[in-house]
């Protein structure tokens, strides 16, 4: 199968293939130009990047049909998250997806229906793309792998990886300057876009979409990228006067130009836990990150064995990248027990150091064995770098630098 579809589109129409077409135009342009082929009567749908000639999406409805006859696997019958990641990596490797920039970000079993069966209970493994220690925005670049929860059978995957990595690496514009540029721009807009609170800034790789200042036009409202050439940007997030709304303004790190942004509005009445606000504030005023391994062997419980650090002066991209993409653990979702493998030290502006527990096995941060947030992929990569084995058989943790 793979050999048949890893070829140019015309040749993809083998005898097994019943149709080949250009992928639907109303789909996300971040896929890049792709061909879509069906194998069997609507059984397997494959998307092949026309430039990369790799499989970028795959969905096997035969597996869904098969799994639909099975009962939903209970937790003891499910594969472990590590096994799920290993399976996902292997599938992506077989499909020809470049794994070098990918870091696992989300691994979970979820049910689509209230009457779960083998089809509805699936593993979702999501990888984010990282470039030079800086994460891409989730909307722009990601890989999602859906698998059977019992055996890890591949149901489908989608690899949105068409972006071209940034050409610039400099951080000529400081985060403070970026914030003032963004707020000045927002102040010039209509009242609903006026800043209504302090801004938060992160370093991310974005695909410019140029929605500012004409944010009301139909093209801007779709927030689709205008180019697949990615740029390094300060993503300035600011609450506005529209209730529950936060807007992102992406400021180029080299010339301070506004590359685009996004508008996000909370649709519910959710509030993140209070501890998360403290952690986020600490990240916002961080001047140095230190990491100490926590001994887990008998007799060394809690002992700090090694220390590493990141600072904006020595390695700015990994430092700012590690601070990006922090997400609160969703309230109400059961959290895994936090077993600290590392102690994260956040040196604040005033010189104090805030200590947090970090669990490298699932990238969670918390205190007192309570999970509060999930670290961004860059921080995870810094704590325990992942080198994918050449055969794509799974992850191998590289020795710490």
């Amino acid at each position: 199968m793979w050999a048949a579809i890893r070829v140019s589109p015309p040749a993809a129409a083998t005898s097994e293939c019943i149709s080949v077409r250009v992928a639907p135009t109303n789909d996300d342009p971040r896929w890049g130009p792709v061909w879509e082929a069906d194998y069997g009567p609507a059984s397997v749908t494959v998307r092949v990047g026309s430039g990369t000639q790799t499989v970028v999406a795959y969905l096997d409805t035969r597996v869904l049909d098969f799994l639909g006859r099975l009962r939903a696997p209970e937790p003891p019958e499910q594969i472990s998250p590590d096994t799920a990641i290993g399976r996902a990596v292997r599938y992506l490797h077989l499909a020809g997806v470049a794994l070098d920039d990918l870091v696992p970000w989300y691994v979970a079993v979820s049910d689509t229906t209230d009457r779960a069966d083998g089809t509805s209970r699936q593993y979702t493994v999501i990888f984010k793309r990282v470039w030079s220690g800086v994460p891409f925005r989730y909307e722009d670049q990601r890989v999602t792998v859906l698998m059977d929860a019992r055996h890890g059978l591949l149901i489908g995957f989608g690899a949105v990886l068409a972006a071209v990595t940034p050409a610039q690496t400099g951080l000529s514009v400081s985060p403070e300057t970026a914030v003032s540029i963004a707020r000045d721009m927002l102040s010039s807009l209509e009242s609903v876009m006026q800043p209504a609170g302090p801004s938060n800034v992160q370093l991310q790789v974005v695909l410019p979409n140029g929605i500012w200042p004409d944010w009301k036009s139909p093209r801007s409202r779709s927030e689709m990228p205008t180019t697949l050439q990615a740029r390094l940007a300060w993503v300035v997030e600011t609450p506005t006067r529209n209730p529950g709304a936060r807007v992102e303004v992406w400021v180029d790190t080299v010339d301070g130009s506004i590359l685009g942004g996004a508008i996000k509005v909370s649709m519910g009445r959710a509030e993140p836990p209070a501890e998360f606000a403290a952690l986020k504030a600490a990240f916002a005023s961080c001047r140095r990150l230190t990491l100490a391994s926590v001994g887990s062997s008998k007799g060394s419980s809690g002992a700090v064995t090694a220390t590493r650090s990141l600072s904006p002066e020595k390695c700015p991209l990994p430092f700012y990248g590690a601070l990006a993409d922090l997400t609160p653990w969703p309230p109400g979702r059961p959290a895994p027990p936090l077993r600290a493998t590392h102690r994260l030290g956040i040196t604040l502006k005033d010189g104090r150091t805030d200590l947090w527990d970090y669990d490298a096995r699932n990238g969670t941060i918390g205190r007192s064995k309570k999970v509060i947030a999930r670290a961004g992929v860059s921080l995870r990569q810094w704590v325990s770098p992942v080198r994918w084995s050449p055969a794509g058989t799974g992850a191998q943790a590289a020795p710490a630098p």
Partner: protein
Amino acid sequence: MDNGEAGTYLRETAMVVEGGQPCAVPEHGACPAAAVHGAGTEAVVLPADTWVARLLPVARRLVATNVRVAHTVSPRPHPDGRRPGSGHARREGLSMTHRAATKTLPLRGICVVATIIVAGLAPARADWLMRVPASGPMPRYFSGTNCTTSGWAQWDGFPDPVHFLDKIELWVNDRRVAYREYSKCFPEGDELAAVFDSTEFPDASTIVVTVKVHDLEDPPEVWHSASNQTPAYNKGFVFGNEIPMLGGIGSLVKGYDVAQSMADSLRQDHHTVQPVSPTVAVNQHYDAILAAVPSATALACYTHGDTGILGDSATGTPQGHWMTAAQLGAACGSKTVDQPPYNWVFVDACNAGITKDIAVAFGVDVFVGPPSPDRAFVGWATYMQDNTSLQMWPRRLYQYLLAGQRLENSIGSANQAGKPLDDFDNPADVKLYRDARFKTYKMCPRAPRASSAGRWTHRPEGVRDAIRNPTHTGGQTSLVRHDHTCCLPGNERSGAGSARGPARMPGTHPNSRS
């Protein structure tokens, strides 16, 4: 009656015809095992060749005088107690479009003669009885993707003459949705059923269901048919929440675009969508929504929500209102008998799917099967964020649904390209209630699904391609088709409907006389 008696009988009949003098009508019970069938422009005599030779001149004479036999009402009760023919059909409000049933006799004398002939030769009431649907009344509407229809045909050749089905077909408008051919053994009657989608047809258009049968003794071009009709009912309601700056009265920023794309998708699904324009769709107040709920069979919205409650277009502002599941349920409960239940509800709002309250309110989660109707409710089970990932997700979902994929596959396909981010920037999972194998459109005609412990059986996919492109060979099933190579009791194939009683080999009918 042996052949000699039949010959005498025929000669007498011929004399009557030629002489124009009436004579006593033989009792049906004395009728030979021959039938002048069809009473159209042709007549076929069975079974003996000699009978054919003798009867053909009579039949030709009938044809030459343009006499069409209208044997639509039988004065005799059917052996099983019901009235045969279209009289029986009319009683149930059904139509019978048998060729013979629509013709009249121009001349009284000829009428008498023809009546005599037919009564004597071909038991006048003997004909193909057909009903659409096979049992019960025609529904008041066809709505949704699990519309079931059926047709029944039975030879009414009492007391004895036996005719056999060669083929039976069920058509919905101009599409043959099920058929059955018999090759070695032939039944006297059969029943076909099929499931189709009202969304294949424009809202309010007439859907005509026709059962067609071909008699084994008829020429290939002669078919008998009966039809019945009812309208399609596909009405969608869409609303969104959008900030005033973008034309709405609410607080979200993607409501207009999502409402527009969802309305477009429903229109592709042959729904009449209200409101007509997205500008109106993002200006729907609480009372207007509740007033519109009863008439629709599909609803899609993009607004605020929480467990068991749903916001209107203004929610998030001081003018906004919340609709509780109870209020929505009451609105759905006010549907009239002419307003079908909901088939599809997609609530793009926070926590709408965290419980089944809203699904139950719309009646989508009510279990009435098996076989249960093709209904589904989809909503989010967490606090969502009005962002581009959520804007794109329903577009992808509809894209795959409109391509004919089942709901569970469509959700998989939409997720495969990326799950939307919730209010905490975590990937969100959608929750669906009811039928995971729901489809919205382009359902192939298919056999009614047998249920196994409440689980849908597999629906063949790719069949629509086979219908539209006969050369397509990719489909596993090109049509719901079943050849009865042998249909002796206990050895029939089941599928597109079931044979109404075991079919029999010719000559094995218990009433046949040999």
